[in-house]
């Protein structure tokens, strides 16, 4: 895909590079705050995405707001923010407030934003992949130009039969989908070697007759280029692509997990040395896109914004108990139909 790469490089002006950096810093700050809130007993669980910042900032930059559709998975905090999801709504989800877009129903990170093209999701791994394919089918059937569907998942998801079914269906129907694997090497406690024999998830693309790309998931520009190229292919009618971004999960799976029980500190520390957030900041400083003081100011502004947001959301009320019964079906929920004629 050299054509797309060449055009992309000219597009990455300073403004976009700083957007990437800012989104990565926001994602890190939201993760940090989430873990703090959980340790303070203010939210029931937190689910960090540290190590995924470059993947999600790069993908978010390739996502065309108002056009594209996103079928996220549960570790996509940075990506949904980069696609326009409001910061306050991330914390409304974490605090499960009445104002949460799911009304406090769905667990943290399981958001919904139809107005932004961001789909509702469950926790059932890979089950969103066929939905993304169905959405892409609708896009193609309606001949909607310049619209692609982003389907996100982790490495563990590729073990699911439904993942295979989704990719195969999209390949056969040549649908405008980008299958983006955020390969962080661990499915909770199970390492990649126990999920698959192959080194690269993307190598499976050959079996579906579609292209597969492996990209450094610690480099947001490289991710952007790969995803933008896959998007170009999708909207040109050439069908789906698997993009595999190699990253790492720095934190435990969630605040309810303890990764010390299954992986060495040395492994985590080795990966920490490659941390994409300071690395990308350093790269921009070296290129004189921003200076150290500028990065520090950006970091402080984000921290202030995040803290002010959580302080505010914390005071909002939770959903009232009677909302439990709403939106089971359109109209009222009654397993037994009671017709007006009933004589009691």
């Amino acid at each position, binding site marked *: 895909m050299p054509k797309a790469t060449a055009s992309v490089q000219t597009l990455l002006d300073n403004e976009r590079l700083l957007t990437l950096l800012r989104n990565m810093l926001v994602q890190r700050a939201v993760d940090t705050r989430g873990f703090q809130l959980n340790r303070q007993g203010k939210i029931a669980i937190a689910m960090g995405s540290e190590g995924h910042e470059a993947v999600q900032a790069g993908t978010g930059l390739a996502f065309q707001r108002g056009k594209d559709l996103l079928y996220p998975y549960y570790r996509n905090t940075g990506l949904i923010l980069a696609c326009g999801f409001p910061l306050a709504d991330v914390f409304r989800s974490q605090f499960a407030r009445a104002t949460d877009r799911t009304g406090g129903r769905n667990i943290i990170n399981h958001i919904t934003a139809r107005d932004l093209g961001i*789909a509702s999701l469950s926790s059932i791994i890979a089950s969103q992949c066929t*939905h993304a394919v169905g959405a892409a089918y609708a896009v193609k059937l309606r001949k909607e130009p310049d619209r692609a569907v982003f389907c996100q998942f982790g490495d563990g998801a590729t073990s699911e039969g439904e993942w295979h079914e989704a990719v195969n269906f999209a390949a056969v129907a040549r649908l405008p989908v980008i299958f983006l694997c955020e390969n962080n090497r661990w499915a909770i406690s199970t390492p990649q070697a126990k999920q698959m024999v192959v080194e690269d998830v993307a190598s499976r693309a050959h079996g579906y007759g579609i292209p597969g790309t492996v990209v450094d998931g610690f480099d947001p520009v490289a991710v952007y280029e790969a995803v933008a190229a896959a998007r170009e292919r999708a909207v040109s009618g050439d069908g789906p692509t698997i993009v595999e971004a190699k990253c790492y999960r720095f934190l435990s799976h969630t605040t309810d997990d303890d990764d010390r029980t299954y992986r060495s500190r040395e492994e985590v520390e080795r990966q920490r040395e490659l941390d994409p957030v300071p690395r990308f900041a350093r790269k921009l400083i070296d290129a004189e896109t921003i200076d150290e003081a500028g990065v520090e100011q950006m970091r402080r502004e984000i921290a202030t914004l995040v803290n002010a947001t959580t302080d505010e959301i914390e005071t909002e009320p939770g959903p009232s108990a009677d909302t439990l019964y709403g939106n089971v079906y359109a109209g009222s929920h009654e397993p037994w139909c009671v017709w007006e004629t*009933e004589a009691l």
Partner: protein
Amino acid sequence: MAVATSGTTTMNNVEAVRHTLYEALKADDRTLILGEDVGARGNVFLITKGFIEEFGPERIIDTPLAEASIAGVAIGMAMEGLRPIAEIQFADFIYPAFNQIVGEAAKTRYRSNGDYTCPLVIRTPYGGGIRGALSHSVSIEALFYHVPGLKIVAPSFPADMKGLLNAAIDDPDPVLFLEHKKTYRLVKGEVPQGHYTIPIGKADVKREGDRLTVVSYGFYIHQALEAAAQLAGEGMDVEVIDLRSIRPMDRTTILASVRKTRKLLIIHEDNKFGGIGAEISAMVVEDAFFDLDAPIRRLCGPDVPAMGYALSLEEAFMIPVPRMAEAMREMVNF
């Protein structure tokens, strides 16, 4: 399809489903059909024969042979504004799609608090008596009727097929549409012309009587009516209710009938334990216990995994008309 009396057409159940699907595809270009062998083959029962030529392969989709993706892709289509009608070739093959139907379709509206909806119809032929053996004969309704967020209908008369299939297609929520395959060509009836719907959740009193209420659905509703006709000849008028909808279920019609006849017999092909009859009898005991003059009785499939292939094993599973008639007599005479 022969035009009979004015305003109706005589059809069997295959023709009624086919006719309704055809009209839906004509009326709304958001509507499409996806499933295994629905295109060139025209579905294994020829329900969609010729559709692919008329509506094109984009709307009559021969999918890869993978049921989870048939349901999952249809859900994605529904979430993005299409009106998919998915087909699972035989109900027995629906298990790989269970996650998508129960975990996803049924919960889309709820988990997004109405932000996303899933207006989806999943049609599937079910039921036995056709030498289908373990994997072409099962009843699946009890596996799904526990699930809030789903609707389940199982009509078995051509006019009901049309009215309820139209209602299912119009419905803003996912509907599992069960077609008893033994009735496909066996059952004929008059079908009103033009577009109409029958409300999901409304049962139909197919025969009025005052000595006993029989609730059934599927192929057995036809057998139950035959048995009830025999009893009428013996001077016993039995009321026969065709449930038509399994979830939501028609509380009003069942309770009104039981309060009149004071006895209830439930007949279904699916096995008894945890079946549809268990919920009906629980509801009647909760709400009409003091109106009952006899214990409720359930006449159901035996608690074995499925009916066998050998004719003797299939016959041992199915309930013939004389057994239904005998159960009705015993109840009337209780």
